[in-house]
């Protein structure tokens, strides 16, 4: 069995180090300079405390600093006190080990990090001359702000300089442009120099992450594809607010949008996205025949959202998200609870409140099963953070999150919400015991919402389940993460890419491609009572969703702006169901009634070689960004040679169709598999292939085999 307590080892190393540092709070010269706000940033900028150097969990060459300076008090102790203060020499500052090593005057594996003539070297030296004071103990950086927050660099050779201002806790401000750390999130779009100069590299959107003194900020960067023209409008008017924002960004970046999809393309896409299945041949015929119907797409969307198939498919989406992976009666209770809420379109905040506060018998209280995901409260906090708050908080288990605002205390106080979950006698219960301790001080921590984003529960009484407070905070209308996280996922499930990617990493330093659009959608979602169907419908109604996937000249390279529809591979259960639907032969799943489709399976543990080879989501960890195990050549071999497909070809629709004329057979197969009639050249080619009557059945099977193996079939386009 694998050890599930991830990161524990590296945390242990951190906890070994503690002690009470002695601070020299007065400075010899009377300057208000503090170690925390003036000296430590120099070392951070020079790379001394990076994860690969002394910031590593075990330090480097016997000298350990906190990662990117998250723990100034400890760093101060190590620099000025550890090993008999051998790293500093106040009498002869230049011969201090700190300076000798950093400048490369003494052998240093990290090389020369600070040039002897540099102002930074001088500042360090002056600080040592003054006796290396810590300075005002409480002075710290409260926030940083980068400007401009939005950069638009119209030509590829363009440069722009960022400026960073730090707000200190005493109310003063500092220009820290030269000391901040800059990281380009996508250096194929823009690069950034050590000094904060941004250079355009290629067209697209990205952002520059800026870090200083434990605080973070980001500047968005846009590099246009073509010189912006006044008239870059697409040939259809904005259908709703989504289109206005998407169009504006396309215009700003000079990307011509593709036109609306044709009816067949739209029908197949929206049926797959809303119900996880292909439109039937007769549905395709009907829909294409309704030519003079201005609102037929809207009617179709509303009709699909009202189907049982919609309920089944969106239950699967949410079950994947919740990692609903058990077996047995309790899993059935959990699944049925979830499906029931999807069927009645229960407001999402209510669904999550029920889940977060669930307790009781596992077979009676379905959502209580969520708490079986992990036993350790810290692991649970990471699941809750990722699933409902779109945040990867795991880094903060051992040190301040290097790219977000969470501190170690934030992390462990958040985890403390889950400390008293008991799992006895087939149920989830509140216990009186159970605490999460601060890894350094060892003191038990009271629960607190993530970071400064909420208030501490008032009555820390032993009687109340702390999860009640948590659920209220998470789902309150002003929670900045909860609604954004689910809306961003709904967007991704429909459009193939989140407005923020990855969808479980909504950091301030990872801004959305369309920030205003996301906020508008989030506000609309809340205004409509956390109504999932409403937002799905709004997205489906937009012209943006309904664009063709065909590129036009000038937009093929765009992957972020929705100038054309993204290709989405059919997800594994949908693919398996589609093969069954097209061939007319159902898959059979052990202990499920006949006719059960793969998207309806409550457990990924349901035995199925087919789904294993295709590579289904096992719901053990997120399948949102990690590729699953199946696929590749193994998958191709299975689709080419698999006995399952062959038997479906032999027993299914091929037999029904053989009495029809060859052109009718071809048409029927194309409608069933691809949701469109064949083009004239396709029709004539395959109709003549099917001519020989004596070989007709096998030829139909072979044509159908090819359709199911074709590129077009495998994608939702």
């Amino acid at each position, binding site marked *: 069995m694998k050890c599930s307590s991830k990161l524990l080892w590296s945390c242990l190393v951190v906890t070994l180090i503690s002690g009470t540092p002695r601070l020299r709070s007065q400075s010899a010269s009377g300057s208000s300079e503090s170690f925390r706000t003036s000296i430590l940033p120099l070392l951070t900028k020079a790379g001394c405390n990076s994860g690969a150097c002394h910031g590593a969990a075990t330090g480097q060459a016997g000298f350990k600093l906190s990662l990117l300076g998250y723990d100034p008090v400890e760093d101060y102790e190590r620099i000025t006190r550890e090993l008999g203060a051998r790293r500093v020499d106040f009498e002869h500052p230049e011969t201090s080990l700190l300076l000798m090593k950093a400048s490369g005057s003494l052998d240093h594996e990290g090389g020369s990090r600070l040039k002897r003539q540099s102002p930074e070297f001088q500042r360090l030296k002056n600080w040592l001359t003054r006796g290396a004071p810590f300075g005002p103990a409480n002075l710290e950086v409260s926030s940083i702000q980068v400007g401009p927050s939005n950069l638009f660099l119209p030509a590829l050779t363009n440069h722009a300089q960022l400026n960073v201002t730090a707000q200190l806790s005493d109310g003063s401000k500092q220009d820290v442009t030269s000391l901040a750390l800059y990281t380009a999130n996508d250096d194929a779009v823009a690069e950034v120099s050590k000094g904060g100069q941004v250079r355009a590299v290629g067209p697209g959107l990205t952002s520059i992450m800026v870090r200083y003194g434990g605080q973070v900020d980001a500047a968005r960067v846009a590099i246009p594809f073509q010189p912006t023209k006044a008239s870059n409008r697409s040939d259809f008017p904005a259908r709703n607010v989504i289109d206005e924002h998407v169009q504006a960004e396309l215009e700003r970046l000079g990307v011509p949008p593709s036109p609306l999809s044709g009816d067949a393309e739209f029908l197949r896409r929206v049926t797959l996205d809303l119900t996880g299945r292909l439109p039937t041949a007769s549905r395709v015929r009907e829909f294409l025949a309704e030519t003079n119907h201005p609102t037929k797409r809207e009617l179709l969307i509303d009709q699909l959202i009202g189907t049982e198939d919609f309920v089944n498919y969106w239950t699967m989406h949410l079950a994947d998200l919740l990692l609903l992976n058990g077996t047995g009666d309790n899993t059935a209770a959990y699944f049925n609870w979830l499906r029931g809420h999807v069927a009645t379109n229960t407001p999402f905040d209510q669904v999550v409140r029920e889940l977060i506060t669930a307790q009781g018998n596992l077979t009676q209280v379905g959502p209580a099963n969520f708490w079986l995901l992990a036993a350790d409260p810290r692991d649970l906090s990471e699941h809750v953070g990722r699933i409902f708050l779109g945040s990867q908080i795991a880094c903060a288990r051992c040190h301040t999150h290097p790219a977000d605002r969470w501190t170690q205390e934030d992390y462990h106080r958040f985890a403390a919400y889950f400390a008293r979950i008991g799992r006895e006698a087939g149920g989830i219960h509140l216990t009186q015991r159970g605490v999460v301790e601060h890894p350094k001080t060892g003191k038990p921590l009271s629960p607190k919402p993530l970071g400064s984003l909420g208030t501490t529960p008032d009555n820390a009484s032993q009687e109340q389940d702390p999860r009640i407070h948590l659920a209220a905070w998470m789902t309150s209308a002003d929670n900045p993460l909860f609604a954004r996280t689910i809306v961003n996922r709904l967007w991704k499930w429909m459009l193939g890419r989140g407005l923020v990617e990855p969808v479980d990493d909504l950091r301030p330093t990872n801004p959305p491609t369309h920030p205003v659009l996301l906020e508008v959608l989030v506000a609309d979602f809340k205004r409509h009572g956390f109504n999932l169907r409403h937002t799905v419908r709004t997205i489906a109604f937009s012209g943006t969703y309904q664009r063709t996937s065909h590129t036009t000249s000038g937009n093929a390279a765009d992957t972020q702006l929705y100038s054309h529809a993204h290709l989405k591979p059919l997800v594994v259960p949908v693919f398996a169901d589609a093969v069954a639907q097209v061939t007319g032969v159902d898959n059979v799943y052990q202990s499920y009634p006949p006719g059960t489709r793969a998207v309806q399976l409550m457990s990924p543990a349901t035995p199925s070689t087919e789904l294993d080879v295709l590579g289904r989501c096992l719901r053990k960890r997120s399948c949102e960004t990690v*590729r699953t195990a199946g696929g590749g050549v*193994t998958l191709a071999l299975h689709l080419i*040679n698999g006995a399952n497909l062959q038997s479906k070809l032999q027993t299914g629709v091929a037999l029904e169709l053989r009495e029809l004329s060859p052109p009718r057979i071809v048409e029927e197969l194309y409608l069933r598999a691809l949701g469109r009639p064949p083009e004239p050249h396709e029709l004539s080619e395959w109709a003549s292939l099917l001519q020989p009557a004596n070989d007709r059945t096998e030829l139909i099977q072979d044509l159908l085999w090819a359709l199911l193996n074709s590129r077009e079939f495998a994608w939702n386009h």
Partner: protein
Amino acid sequence: MNSHQSSETSAEGPAPLAQGRQRCDGISRRDFVYLGMLSAFGLSLSDAIRLQAQSNSGRTAKAKACILIWLDGGPSHLDTFDPKPEAPSEIRSQFQSIPTRIPGVHICEHLPRTAAVMHEVALIRSLTHELGNHDTGTRFLLTGHRPTPSLEYPSMGSIVAHEYGFTTPMPPYIAIPSDSAGGDSNAARSGYLPGGFSAFNVGPDFSRLGGLTLPEGVSIARGERRRDILRKMDQFSRQVEEGPATGDRDAYYEQAYRLMGSSKAKDAFDLAAETRENRDRYGPSRVGSGCLMARRLIEAGARFVTVVDTGWDTHQQIFKELPDSRFPGSGKLPSLDRAYSALIADLRDRGLLDSTLVVLMGEFGRTPKINAIGGRDHWPRAGCVCLAGGGVSGGRVIGATNSFGEVPSERPVSPPDLMFTILQLLGIDPSRELRTPTGRPMKLLQEGSFIQELV
């Protein structure tokens, strides 16, 4: 397409070994030229097949192939190849140690057959790193890079597949039973390289490798007809435009058909073709069958075969789990002993050992101190690796740990050093530069240097 050239030409010549070491802040970013929109597509697998058919001549390295036996979960160094019989009882193994064919070198008593082939083996006792989780440790070992959230790095197997290309019907990179090493992390997969360079997974049942032949009732002629229809159908259809993802899918099909078309390649997957004596020699265990399969696949043209042996994460009852096959899910050591020693001897007998590098390792060692439930926990600061064949000089030990097996006391070897060495032994320049899908230039390795003592 521009992107072919960008991905295929190294931006610089091979770096001298002395320059292989990198500053500890890692990446020294270099300016790179934006190559136009096509660079966003990277190199598709099908392009690679075409290009590399021509580029594979002229390798002079001794090793032509590699078998990696991956001890998933992290084998205890103290209870396998680095016993410390003098250490106090809370540290030392309960197993005795026995002499080997390397004078003065002892290993665990449950590895007697291995002890008898140690003259072929170079044993590194000073592998060290700092990543104590299965997923991160596995990634570090198999990719040579510390994991970062922003970029997935390709595994050794995928790099070998990329560099050697698809020159035979046999897929270059094969995993037995699958490439899910380190839990279900992506450590053994293709990272930023196209998915087509991932391993071909043999699957859990070696004896019934499905899908290599047409289904019953479909003749070869009909199989050909289907393929012709499919080819034409994809050409006709303009609904789905080609891009990197569709390119990968097309390449999987191409590779599948090549494999199906070669009886030599298909036969290699059939263990029934081995003699009973030889099957006995490797033993009936999964690792035994896996090693035997690996040898057959290498013979048939595979370049990198990973045999994943799970169950080495011995947090409890280590002295029962490792040696005793009656203990549930265990008997790791006797099975490995038989499989590993048979593989080395068999490759030697067949004249394949000099051209086949055999690597035995896991993601980390285990805590010197035995825990309260009789097991050992994760300990990345010390671990062992065995290398044999492929130009490695056997019969020697490199590095050592301190008296309690806690940290290297001499010649520490890092995961990048190890990967650097493996790549170089296989004739692949570790400083070679590829491009990520976003066009960023990326060396195969950012750090690491060749372990000279091995040759």
